[in-house]
């Protein structure tokens, strides 16, 4: 499917000359590692003993009967160490970095989930780790910053541009342009210049392979995942990409609704073809090609671009996309907490909301599998404020006073 890093017209390697060599080298090393038994047995070992794989596939019986539609299964990626699927890719690439003799890893981070995963993977594998994070995201996701530091990573605050995820990608690319000799750039989603989209899909495809095995005789009618850059979605869908079934549904951030700056819907909204961050895809850019601001209640979906393979599969019709608004994601968050005792990550709650709608429309006798890409512990400051505003504020105030006293 992938010719020269392209998926149809999307993808490629649109980087300055300085990064061409390092990316070619990475591609070669990744290819070599893929046929290296020792590499895979170590990866397998880390998946089992460090990440905690396989993650469960839960038949969500309560949710299914409450909805009265299709049977819902939930892949519990959120039970992986560090709380999200991001660790699958982080461990894979960190191991590759080590194999390449790199002593330092840099990463971008928005929500902080990828940053936390990288920091943990690097602690485990004894590699220096630097995480770039926008000032605005540091403010929004402070708890994750503490975890990264506890793992021994250095968190570098990015004060340029909009001070969010896209700017931390720029900062990491800048670092890499002068540090590639000893440093690996551990990109966190299925995007960026080739070979990142292939590599990230490859490390995340463990989600889909496990799900398929766990489903056994059950043939799913639909798979649903949320799509930020697209790494959990493409990894979850991977074994099912060939052919026309099951339905593959991607949930993008619908934010506050339509309009510039209100959402991050690249496919289901107003994405335009452009080249940003080293790859060609659909981006939220204006008529001049300037990257537009985005919004989502979930920091992990709050990014103006989408992985090139997802853009391609959207165009081919293989993956369908819907927008899920902030309020709909919050409803789904409450629903799965009450029905199944699961707190979805805010990102994953977008997939949850899309799955509920789809299960209703498909009706009984069908099967819908949704990927809970992360668990929602990290979101407490956002979900509590949104669902229980005044009481949460009071708690925070009391807490800060207690802290000062002690």
């Amino acid at each position: 499917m992938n010719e020269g890093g392209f998926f149809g017209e999307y993808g490629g390697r649109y980087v300055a000359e300085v990064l061409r060599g390092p990316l070619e080298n990475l591609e070669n090393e990744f290819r070599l590692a893929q046929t290296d038994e020792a590499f895979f047995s170590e990866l397998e070992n880390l998946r089992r003993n460090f990440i905690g794989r396989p993650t469960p596939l839960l038949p969500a019986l309560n949710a299914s009967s409450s909805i009265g539609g299709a049977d819902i299964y939930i892949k519990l990626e959120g039970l992986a160490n560090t709380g999200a699927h991001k660790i699958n890719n982080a461990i894979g690439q960190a191991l590759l970095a080590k194999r390449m003799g790199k002593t330092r890893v840099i990463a971008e981070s928005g929500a902080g989930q990828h940053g936390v995963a990288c920091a943990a993977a690097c602690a485990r594998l004894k590699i220096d780790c630097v995480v770039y994070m926008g000032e605005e995201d540091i403010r929004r996701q402070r708890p994750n910053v503490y975890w990264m530091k506890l793992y021994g990573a250095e968190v570098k605050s990015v004060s340029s541009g909009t001070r969010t995820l896209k700017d931390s990608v720029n900062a990491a690319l800048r670092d890499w342009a002068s540090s590639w000799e000893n440093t690996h750039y551990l990109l966190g989603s299925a995007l960026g210049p080739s070979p990142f989209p292939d590599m990230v899909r490859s490390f995340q495809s463990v989600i889909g392979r496990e799900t398929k095995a766990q489903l056994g005789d059950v043939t799913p009618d639909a798979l649903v995942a949320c799509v930020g850059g697209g790494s959990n979605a493409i990894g979850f869908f991977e074994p099912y990409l060939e052919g026309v079934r099951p339905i593959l549904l991607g949930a993008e951030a619908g934010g506050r609704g339509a309009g510039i700056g209100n959402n991050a819907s690249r496919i289901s909204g107003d994405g335009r073809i452009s080249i940003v961050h080293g790859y060609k895809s659909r981006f939220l850019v204006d008529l001049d090609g300037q990257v537009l601001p985005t919004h989502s209640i979930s920091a992990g979906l709050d990014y103006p671009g989408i992985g090139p393979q997802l853009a391609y599969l959207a165009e081919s019709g293989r993956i369908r996309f819907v927008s899920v608004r902030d309020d709909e994601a919050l409803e789904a968050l409450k629903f799965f907490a009450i029905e199944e005792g699961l707190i979805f990550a805010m990102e994953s709650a977008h997939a949850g909301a899309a799955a509920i709608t789809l299960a209703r429309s498909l009706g009984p006798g069908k099967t819908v599998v949704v990927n809970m890409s992360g668990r929602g512990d990290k979101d407490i400051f956002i979900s509590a404020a949104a669902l229980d505003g005044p009481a949460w504020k009071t708690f925070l105030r009391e807490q800060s006073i207690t802290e000062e006293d002690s």
Partner: protein
Amino acid sequence: MNSDVKASLITHMIAGYPDFEKSLEVARGLIAGGAYALEIQIPFSDPNADGPLIENACRVALSRGFKVADTWRLLEVIRAESSIPIFLMSYASTAISCGLANFLRRAVEFATTGIIIPNLVPGADEGLFRTAAELGCPAVPVLVPWISDQRLDEILSMPIDWIYVALRSGITGAYTQIEAPQRSFLAKIRTRQRRPRIMAGFGIQKTAQVANLLEFVEAAVVGSAIVKTISGARHPGEAVRKLVGELQNIKLPKTPG
């Protein structure tokens, strides 16, 4: 230092920084200061091949509502006053937004000498190198000194008049020593038959660097140093005029007033 060297500076500026009128003053100042050519950058929201100074300048220009169309307006005014060579720098996103060929045609309208798009390199260029050459404003590839000979051949086989050598690993903005590896790379290109002209930059901010560099290349590119000067200046046009003069070690006549 050889004071007989006819210094040749290509001066980098950002269209619309700090605002449209002032960027016009800057262009005038650079021309008056004796720049050989202007490299005019179209501001982009995510200029990740540039350093923080230039990124900030882009942000300032864009926050004041600068549009790609304003670049053409700026070029039109400059062209009415001067025939100085102009290199236009853009990122891929702004260059392809209305179609790459349309973009190049606009550039040619204002007698642009060359197009610099750092994230469209030969072989992954969306047809930039061919189309730009056909239209008469060849693209300028940005090279780094440690590329392989094979890659160098590939780049030099493109239809080009100029190449831009980025002297330092990494992005623009920090001070560059022009050391043995860079010198030998430049010497390697100079031994080629039918070689393109060379501009070199990244971190040039001292008169001595310029003089040293001009022993090896046709032009030294000064970027961040100019942006820095503009950002601290009450009268950016006059400030850059002086800077360009100093960098070329040329004594300028005092302007009246």
